[in-house]
């Protein structure tokens, strides 16, 4: 069973990479007003029960994949 975890920096201040890309694009005159860069994590789980699996991925996302001080996360199932 496959899950996806999206992790985004909480504040603009924390998104150095996003800001750097944004500045670069604006300097090059692209009509881009904002760029934010986060992570996309694909997790393949060996577990039949979808609810249990999702619970585990959410747990991992909260404890390991993201740091709540600086990031937010969302977990998606394969269908969503």
């Amino acid at each position, binding site marked *: 069973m496959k899950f996806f975890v999206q992790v985004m920096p909480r504040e603009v201040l924390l998104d150095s*990479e996003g800001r*750097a890309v944004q500045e670069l694009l604006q300097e090059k005159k692209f009509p881009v007003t904002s760029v934010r860069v986060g992570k996309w994590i694909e997790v393949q789980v060996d577990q039949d029960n979808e609810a249990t699996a999702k619970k585990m991925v959410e747990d991992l996302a909260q404890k390991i994949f993201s740091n709540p*001080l600086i990031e937010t996360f969302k977990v998606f199932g394969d269908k969503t």
Partner: protein
Amino acid sequence: MSRKTQVGVIRFPGTNCDQDVFSWVQREGLNAKWIWHRDSFSDQEFDLVILPGGFSYGDYLRSGALAAQSKAVESLISHVKKGRHVLGICNGFQILCEAKLLPGALVTNQSLRFQDDWVDVRVENTGPVCAKVEKSQKYKLPIAHKMGRFFAPADDLKKIQDSDQVWLRYEKNPNGSLDNIAGIWNAEKTVCALMPHPERASLEWMGSQDGKAFL
């Protein structure tokens, strides 16, 4: 009869300042012992545990994030509960924040680059760890990191400031650290960590000996 201070040095996969720190501890006349990341240790064993610098787990995901999940860090939490001391250096600082033993987080330098520089840090608040370090004094130490920019949400930062948890400030901010913070304490003043490397400034030929005061 005073016994020699027992110092544990944790090695994670990817730690690369482990030997440097170990030798430094021995040179300063203390007893050094390795702690392997997969092992637990007793909360009676060490007076001080040091988390050296490096790239534990390759700095993947976020620096320190994966190491914070280790057995050794589980034991470290009990060690801290017993009031025993911890010093984190560079990646060790990052791990301590990820393990929630210290407030805040370390994010990518403003330059988005790894930086190897000499910096001067000023001591703001002292405590029982690294007790030889003197308040208001300046120390010349090298930094070498890509994720050394201290960050904490506004409330947390205020708490850190108000409860004298700021340990060291950069004289000249090299990486965009909030409030020029180079090192902090936990609220109980038993755990401290800094981004610069005192072990790399502990002999005459290294370019500075100011790091000696940190043991």
